[in-house]
């Protein structure tokens, strides 16, 4: 029985048998010749080990994320896809230009960018008190439990969550029934299929992306810092704006970027909850693929344009919000 140490020298296995007298599975693995040979190579050659550690995730990202994007980029410059067998595809930038010339493209594009920025702002306002409460008011041993509780809605798919909003907000949904039953209203209020529904649905889906970074940032602020500010005469508002807020800018930047990127590409929520004037750009892109007789090149061009613009704005948000570090320790 041999075990391999980091210097590549064989050592006796130290895995004890379990209480039921069974040999531990790890011990069995260590005795395997293939595993032992692989371990020997990896441990004896740190570069190989580093390449494996870095290479596998990089390969994963390249195959599943980068290659599809390259494929999409290629299609976005074709004049026809699928190309006819008898005449190969031509190359064009017309699909990109249409984003600037066609009302049906640039209006929802601009609307989506504005909407995503608004969602970031509202998310921040909604998530900040919750994150602060969790980080500073809840006993430490309850914080993780409550955080897990907050994530419960995200255990089900976006479609189910959007449908659950319909059940709540529909004309014969829970809120309208309650309002009418209690005599507050005499007929249903139109909660669905407007900005209220789309905005609410999007915030419901994205709020965790803001909440968790904010919680992590607030949790890191030592209580003594806040107490010192208080001792020096700072009011609650002054403490918030001059101590807490500057110290959580990293968290705000992370949350803002995440929420913005998710909001620009959100699809299910507007499909299910949007009205006649609240279409988002993801719906326009989907329409190119499904409704417009397979206009894939145009859909691909719009996807690439949205992706690039969203990244640019996210980088700008990050630059503006994240604190500038003049000195590095």
């Amino acid at each position, binding site marked *: 029985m041999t075990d391999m140490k980091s210097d590549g020298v064989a050592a006796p296995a130290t895995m004890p048998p379990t209480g039921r007298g069974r040999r531990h599975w790890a011990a069995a693995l260590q005795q*395997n010749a293939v595993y032992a040979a692989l371990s020997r190579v990896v441990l004896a050659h740190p570069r190989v080990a580093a390449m494996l550690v870095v290479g596998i995730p990089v390969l994963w990202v390249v195959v599943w994320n980068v290659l599809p994007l390259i494929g999409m980029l290629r299609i976005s410059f074709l004049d026809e896809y*699928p190309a*006819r067998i008898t005449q190969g595809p031509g190359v064009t930038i017309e699909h990109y230009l249409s984003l600037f010339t066609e*009302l*049906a493209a640039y209006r929802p594009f601009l609307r989506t960018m504005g909407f995503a920025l608004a969602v970031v702002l509202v998310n921040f306002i909604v998530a900040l008190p919750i994150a602060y409460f969790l980080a500073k008011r809840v006993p430490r041993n309850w914080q993780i439990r409550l955080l897990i509780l907050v994530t419960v809605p995200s255990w089900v798919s976006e479609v189910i969550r959007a449908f659950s909003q319909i059940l709540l907000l529909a004309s014969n949904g829970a809120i309208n029934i309650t309002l009418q039953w209690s005599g507050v209203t005499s007929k249903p209020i139109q909660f669905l*299929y407007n900005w209220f529904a789309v905005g609410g649905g999007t915030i419901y889906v994205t709020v965790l992306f803001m909440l968790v970074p904010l919680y992590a940032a607030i949790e890191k602020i030592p209580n003594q810092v806040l107490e010192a500010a208080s001792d020096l005469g700072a009011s609650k508002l002054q403490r918030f704006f001059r101590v807490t807020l500057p110290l959580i800018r990293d968290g705000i930047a992370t949350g803002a970027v995440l929420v913005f990127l998710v909001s620009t590409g959100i699809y299910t929520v507007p499909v299910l909850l949007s009205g*006649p004037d609240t*279409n988002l750009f993801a*719906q326009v892109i989907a*329409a190119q693929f499904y409704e417009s007789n397979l206009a894939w090149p145009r859909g691909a061009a719009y996807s690439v344009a949205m992706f690039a613009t969203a990244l640019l704005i996210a980088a700008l948000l990050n630059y503006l919000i994240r604190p500038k570090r003049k000195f590095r320790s």
Partner: protein
Amino acid sequence: MIERISRRTILQGAAAVGGMLAMPAIVRGQSGGVVNVLGASQFFPQSMRDRFKQETGITVQYRQGATDASQIFNLLASEGQRETDIVLAYGHRNFPFIAAGYFEEIDESQIPNLNKINPVYLNSPAQKVDGVRYGIPVSAGFMLSVFRNSVVPEAERDTWETVFGDAHAGRLTWRSGGLLLAQIFYHGVQDAWFKFENTPEGVARLEDAFKMIQSWVSQNKHKIVKWYETAAEAQQLFYGNEVDVSQGTTDVVMPLVAADPDYGRAIPKEGAHGFTANYSVTTGAPHRDDAYKFIDFLLGQPDTNGEMIRSAGGVSTMLDTTAGLTEEEAALYAFSEEELSRISWLSILSADDPRFPLQDKYVATLKEV
């Protein structure tokens, strides 16, 4: 006590796993025993696939193509070593497949049961391009209006005015995909499409009609609660009591009507467009002969017709339209001759027919005008 895992055991296990993973390819490689099908499930009923396997020993390997886009994606993904034998595509959505060279000319001699299809559908130009048949019509669908019987008076039910007028503003939903073709009947400009001539004047006339409709939609879209895209969305809007009236194709409308007697449907008197769902055989299909056998088998089974109508909500293209249906079902899915005479069937004039690309261009803009 766990036995030590020997190298031999690992090698044997790896060989077994490898064998299992390779099995689909091995099975696929055996031509003659398999047919690979791509399309909406309701047109290839499970019971028919099982019966076909029992009678012929040929296995039908079925992949669901939720939309035409995903179907073509699958075809493209397997380009070069194409795996699909039969595809189901709707009406003019056949066109990209045919234009891309993915469908072969149907070999009618291999389908003796072709004579069970009503010649009205079989000989319509909807499955043909430049006179060549690329599809076999197995079900027909069309645009309808759907409404609550308790809300819409009987006298108002068979006109597009109910769907597009002011009477039900705020309680309407429209589907952008089929709106242009419903609107050309509402505005009485359907000749621009159905008597279309592929000349600059013909194209300009059709474009003028679409521009007029675009302008009308711009001024009237406040009447709708929501644009819907899928049958499930429309049904949700009705069940949730958000709307009373809509336009939709048979796959949207018939499940509603079948579910609740308060929902009614009509082919409006101004007219509506119709289309067929077709079986097509792919170019270079790896199991071509078995594909034709399966198509012929499906056409020869009365139950296919019944199951298809029940699940897809269309109209039978068979000579015996009630085959496989109960009396109640036959009554529910029956449309009178007078109603059916209001339908104008979509067709493709030639490989460079400009109408559908033009329609798609305007459909894409409707929600934003």
